[in-house]
C-alpha cells in the first residue's frame, strides 16, 4: 500500500471513529430527555364562569393543576401557585386577604402583585379563555408576566 493511500484511509478511519463517538454521545444526551411525560395536561376546563363566587380565590385546582382562579366584577384570571422567589407554593390567607409563602415569607395581593418578602416580581398569570361550550379554559403553556406588561393581553384576563 502506498503511503498516500495509507494516510487517506487512516484519516477516513479516524473521521468515522470521531463521527461514531459523537453520535453515541448525542444519543446519550438525547436519551435523558423523555418523549412522553406522565404529568397532568397543560390546558383544562374548570367549569362555567357562574360556578365561581365573586371576589373569591378559588382553590379547587390548586392541588391538581397548581392554579388559583379569581373572579372579579369585571372578569376572571388564573394565577400560578408558584412563588416567584424560589418556587414554593404560597397559601391563600382569607382573613389577611393575601397569598403568603411559607418558605421565606413572600406576600402577594389577590391580584398577584408582590408587596412583602423576598419575591422579586408578581405571580404569573396563565392564558384564560372561553371554550366553545361556554366553559372556562385555562392553558398553562402560555404565561403572562406583569413586569413585562403582558397582563394587558386579552387572553390574560377573561372579561365576563
Amino acid at each position, binding site marked *: 500500500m502506498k503511503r498516500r493511500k495509507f494516510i487517506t484511509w487512516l484519516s477516513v478511519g479516524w473521521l468515522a471513529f470521531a463521527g461514531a463517538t459523537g453520535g453515541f454521545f448525542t444519543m446519550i444526551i438525547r436519551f435523558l*430527555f*423523555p418523549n412522553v*411525560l*406522565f*404529568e397532568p395536561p397543560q390546558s383544562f376546563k374548570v367549569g362555567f364562569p357562574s360556578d365561581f363566587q365573586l371576589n373569591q380565590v378559588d382553590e379547587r385546582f390548586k392541588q391538581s393543576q397548581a392554579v388559583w382562579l379569581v373572579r372579579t366584577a369585571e372578569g376572571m384570571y388564573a394565577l400560578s401557585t408558584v412563588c416567584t422567589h424560589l*418556587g414554593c407554593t404560597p397559601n391563600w390567607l382569607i382573613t389577611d386577604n393575601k397569598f403568603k409563602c411559607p418558605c421565606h415569607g413572600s406576600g402577594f395581593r389577590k391580584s398577584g402583585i408582590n408587596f412583602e418578602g423576598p419575591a422579586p416580581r408578581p405571580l404569573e398569570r396563565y392564558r384564560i379563555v372561553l371554550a366553545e361550550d361556554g366553559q372556562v379554559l385555562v392553558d398553562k403553556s402560555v404565561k403572562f408576566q406583569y413586569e413585562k406588561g403582558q397582563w394587558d393581553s386579552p387572553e390574560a384576563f377573561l372579561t365576563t
Partner: protein
Amino acid sequence: MADKKKTGLLASIGDSQIWKSIFRTGVPVTRRQRMMGVLNSVFLHLHPVRLPKHAVKLKYTWCMGGLSFFLFLVLTISGILLMFYYRPTVEYAYTDIMDLSEQVPLGIMREIHRWGAHAMVIAVWLHMFRVFMTGSYKPPREFNWAVGVIMLFLTLLLSFTGYLLPWDQLAIWAITVGANMARATPFLGHEGPGASLLAIGDINLVSMTSDIRFALLGGRFVGEGALLRFYVLHCVGLPFIIAILMAVHFWRVRKDGGISTPV
C-alpha cells in the same frame, strides 16, 4: 512445648502454596522487604511506602482527609444496605424510609447513613480548610487541589441528591428550590442569560421541556422522574466518579512529594 507447636503451625501456613501465592514477599525483615510488601499489595500501594515523622502528627493534618475517606466507606456500606429496603417510587419511598427506622432490624442504618453524610460534608470542608491554611495547594500540588475541589463539589452533589430520597415535604421543596436555580444556567437553562438567543424563528430551542433542569428532573416539576434520576445519580453515578477521583487524589499525594512539610 506449646510455643514450639504454635511456631510450627504458623511456619507451615507461611510455607504453604496458598499463603505464598497471595503474599509473595514473606515476613518482612529488611527495609527492602517491607517496601516490596507495600508495593505488591493493591490496597497498600496507594499509600506511601514510608512516611515522614511529621506526617502522622494530628495537629498538622487533623486527619481530616483520612476521616473523609473513612466516612465515604461508612456511607458506601450503609448505603448499599439501605438499598435492600428502599424503593425509589412515589408510592413507596416515604413509607420505606419510615419502615427503615421502625420495622427494619436495629433501625439505625438510616441514621448512620444520614449522620455520616453530614459528618462527611463537614470533614471535607475542614480538610479543604487545613490544606488551604497550610499552603498545601501550592505547586507541585496544584493539580491535586483542583481534583479536591471537584470532589468537594461531588460531595455536595451527593448530599443534594440524597436529600430528595426521603420524599417528605422538606425533601420535595428543597429540591424544587434547588432545581429552580438550574433555570438560570447561561444558555442551558430556559430563564438563563443567552437562552433566548438560541431560537429558530419563533421556536425556542431551550424551553421548559428542553433545558438542563428538565434533563435533571426528567419532567417539568419534581415528581416520579426526578426521584428515580436522583436515586440513580446518588447510588451509582456520582459515587462512581468520586471513587475514580479518590484513587487519583491519593496516588497524587504520594507522587507530588507526600504530605506537605511544616515550614
